[in-house]
């Protein structure tokens, strides 16, 4: 679906200033049907990479192909592409209804009022359809962006920090809509800092650091199991066995870890003391753990 091969992008911030290397040999591949997440620190080059895939930036060197073609501004390639920008870069003077119709019409087909109204109804925007975008919350603007994906059933979606600034309810709603679009067969490329969200949605992840991909794999391979340790959460009764390494106290509950070979001792102990055990599972590295490990490993000492 998307192939980026050794992309280099450098800007000159001003006539007397030096060059900024935004992308420094970035290579990655997004496959058809992927929910692909780009992860990295601020300034790592995630958004720049996305702008390259969208044709908004031309690489100084290297090659980008989206659906087998080089992305160009406004090319027919975009007939099956939708993009939700990071900042609210919408036409703020348009109302919700006008903007939905406008963005949908830019795919070259006339959109009936019924289609627009149905989508607005589905996204809970029907009552705000006469409200100018300048007066809408970020969540409402993002929904206007999503409306175009629903009207045209886009095959490829680019989402740049889509949940930044949204309230928890909207985030959940948004996540469900994305799952629905992905299940329909769309490929989704998303930038996000919210690693827990990526764990919930993505199936493949690329970690970008210093303008290049430092790791790219299936999400499940980032969430490796540490087969030597168990995570346990239980309610202790006074003293604790010495093989439990305490992680944190959560009221009356304790989170800790135990070596694999002491699992049966721990079970005997909890049975003997009649303790409530909330959780006992093999220790799993989160995406956050993998991210820190990889990024710190990539950093010069």
């Amino acid at each position, binding site marked *: 679906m998307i192939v980026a091969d050794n992309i280099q992008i450098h800007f000159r911030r001003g006539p007397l200033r030096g060059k900024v290397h935004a992308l420094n040999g970035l290579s990655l591949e997004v496959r058809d049907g992927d929910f692909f997440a780009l992860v990295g620190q601020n300034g790592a080059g995630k958004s720049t990479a996305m702008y390259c895939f969208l*044709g908004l930036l031309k690489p100084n060197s290297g090659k980008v192909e989206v659906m087998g073609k080089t992305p160009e501004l*406004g090319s027919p390639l975009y007939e099956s592409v939708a*993009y939700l920008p990071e900042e609210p*870069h919408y*036409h703020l*003077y348009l109302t919700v209804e006008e903007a939905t119709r406008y963005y949908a*019409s830019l795919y070259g087909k006339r959109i009936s009022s019924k289609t627009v109204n149905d989508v607005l109804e589905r996204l809970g925007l029907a009552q705000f359809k006469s409200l100018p975008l300048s007066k809408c919350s970020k969540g409402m603007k993002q929904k206007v962006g999503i409306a175009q994906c629903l009207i045209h059933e886009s095959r490829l979606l680019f989402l740049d920090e889509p949940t930044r600034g949204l309230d928890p309810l909207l985030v959940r709603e948004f996540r469900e809509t994305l799952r629905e679009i992905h299940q329909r067969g769309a490929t989704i490329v998303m930038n996000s800092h919210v690693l827990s969200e990526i764990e919930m949605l993505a199936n493949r992840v690329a970690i970008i650091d210093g303008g290049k991909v430092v790791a790219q794999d299936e999400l499940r391979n980032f969430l490796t199991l540490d087969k030597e340790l168990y995570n346990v959460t239980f309610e202790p009764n006074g003293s604790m066995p010495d093989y439990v390494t305490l992680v944190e106290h959560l009221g009356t509950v304790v989170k800790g870890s135990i070596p694999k070979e002491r699992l049966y001792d721990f079970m005997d102990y909890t049975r003997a003391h009649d303790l409530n055990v909330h959780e006992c599972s093999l220790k799993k590295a989160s995406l956050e753990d993998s991210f820190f490990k990889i990024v710190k490993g990539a950093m010069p000492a």
Partner: protein
Amino acid sequence: MTELIRANVLANFAYYRRSRLLIAFLLVFLLLTGLESLPALFSDSGVQAFNTLQGIFSTLNLYLLLFAGGLSLFLISSSLRSRSLKMVFTKPCPPSVWLASTFLSAVAVSLLLNCVVLASMVVMSLFWHVPIRAGLLFISADTFIASVGIIAYLMLLASVMHPAIAVTFALIFNAGMFYDFQFWTQSAIRAGNSSLGLRVLEKAFHYLYILLPMVHAFGKKTEGIYSSLRVLHGEWKYLVYAFGYVLALSAFCYLAALSALQRKRYI
């Protein structure tokens, strides 16, 4: 293609309807014109009514030219500065279509305003019992053609520079200004100062005068129409010539602005 142009033009019309700056300009222009027409309301003289009508028409046409510049300048610079073009160019709508739509939207609004001004002049002529002269139609058409040239020129400038710099540039770099400069240098040379520097300057001003856009390309030939509101049979052809000039100017400005838009980074 047609649907894309239609969608962009409708969005641009919404911008014009809601742009407070443009509406404020329009109101100020109307207020100034209203004040200018006040004395005529208290006069019975036909000559004074004609002079007032001519004055109002001339003022309104000047405002129409200024307003036409604002139509393309504000739309293009606000689209570039708000970065909303990201949402357009990541759809199958290339910069060529968006720019053409923007130009057509500004031209359509300018045409509408020219028609409104012409209709108002006809109504005022009837009200003050001043004969309706063909010059009204000629001047309206000429103003509209000049407006198209201004829209095209400011479309180009707004695509490559900050709007404030674009306005300053347009005020300095226009054919009228360099025609005057050329006239002064020629006068100085005729008066006996034939230094090399002055002759080089005269040539430079001449070429800039030729190259830079003119508001009224055949203004010298049609001066009489503006003062008498009468059109001789052979004078209508200047409208066709002016239209041809503006078409060529618009095509050049469109291609140059398009080239600038295609090189920009929309991030």
